[in-house]
């Protein structure tokens, strides 16, 4: 039986850990709410943009243009979207592992570049030659996660579009955690460039006779970058919401585990105390018996 003081110390340390994890859970829950709100805010914008784009592209061959050019894949760029902080279960590791797996299997022999967003991805690809080039492309990989605005996201999107248009990269893939709900995140490998052509389902969209100012082609060329920026921004927002969801779940589990541990420690503490009392009584009785 462990000594009483040791157990007491352990109980104190486990309960303070429990306090920390439950506080972190509350913080994540609040941040998750805000992150989810941001996603909902963006939805009308991306929906409308998509509608206008569909209105426009009817009658035009959308396979033309710099951003939809399919080339033989020799240079692949991965945008690895993770968090700046840990303690969120498999959130960061899933992204990193997925990239390593896909890079080794599907893109064997290609020149691979990784643009790391988030400290965790940055740290784990630090020694990899893939990340060297990525760093020279985009340097704000860590600050963008804490300061996530549309203008920051569009700056990165413009850099990526430039890389593709100048034929330095033949394919750009976003790897991030898609937000399903607070407990479930799904790893998403999303092709950013070249643009995956969307299937137009409804033909009714083009029935209105719009005036195009200055002209259709010009507007399309303006709007495609916008829709790419929106896509990247959405991936970043999704990843942020997933991060807080993952952390909330992880911290919830940690709090539960701490509670369980405290209970079992309390039990063994009481047992040890009882044993001490019993042996004390035995000693007294034995002493009294000896005096007779």
């Amino acid at each position: 039986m462990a000594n009483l003081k040791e157990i007491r110390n352990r109980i104190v340390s486990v309960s303070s850990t429990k306090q920390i994890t439950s506080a972190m859970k509350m913080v994540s829950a609040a941040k998750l709410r805000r992150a989810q709100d941001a996603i909902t805010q963006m939805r009308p914008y991306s929906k409308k943009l998509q509608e206008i784009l569909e209105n426009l592209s009817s009658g035009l061959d959308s396979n033309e243009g710099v951003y939809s050019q399919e080339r033989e894949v020799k240079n692949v760029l991965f945008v690895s979207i993770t968090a700046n902080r840990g303690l969120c279960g498999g959130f960061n590791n899933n992204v990193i592992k997925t990239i390593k797996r896909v890079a080794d299997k599907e893109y064997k022999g290609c020149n691979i570049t990784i643009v790391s967003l988030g400290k965790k991805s940055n740290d784990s690809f630090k020694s990899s030659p893939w990340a060297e080039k990525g760093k020279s492309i985009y340097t704000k990989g860590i600050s963008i996660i804490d300061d996530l605005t549309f203008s920051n996201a569009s700056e990165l999107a413009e850099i990526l579009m430039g890389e593709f248009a100048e034929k330095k990269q033949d394919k750009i893939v976003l790897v991030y955690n898609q937000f399903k709900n607070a407990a479930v995140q799904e790893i998403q490998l999303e092709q950013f460039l070249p643009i995956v052509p969307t299937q137009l389902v409804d033909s009714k969209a083009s029935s209105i006779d719009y005036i195009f100012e200055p002209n259709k082609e010009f507007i399309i060329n303006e709007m495609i970058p916008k829709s790419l920026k929106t896509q990247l921004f959405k991936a970043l927002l999704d990843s942020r919401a997933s991060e807080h969801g993952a952390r909330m779940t992880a911290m919830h589990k940690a709090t539960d585990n701490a509670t369980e541990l405290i209970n079992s420690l309390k039990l063994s503490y009481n047992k040890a105390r009882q044993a001490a009392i019993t042996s004390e009584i035995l000693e007294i009785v034995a002493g009294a018996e000896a005096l007779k």
Partner: protein
Amino acid sequence: MHLEIITPEKNIYKGEVSLINLPGSDGSFGILTNHAPIISTLKQGTIKIVESNNSEKTFEVKGGVIEMNNNKIIVLAE
């Protein structure tokens, strides 16, 4: 006519207006009620609107798209 100005981060404006002045890519233009359906792109500049009660409002934009159809205007701004 009904106007909505939307950015990726939030909804800036929603309401009835009588006139809207926009910085189009080919130069500034204005839209009055019952204008024909139009889609146009915007460049950096100021959007000026006159609300139904004659008060004026301005918004700065970096660029964007505007769609008007059936007296409904949607400005996707940046």
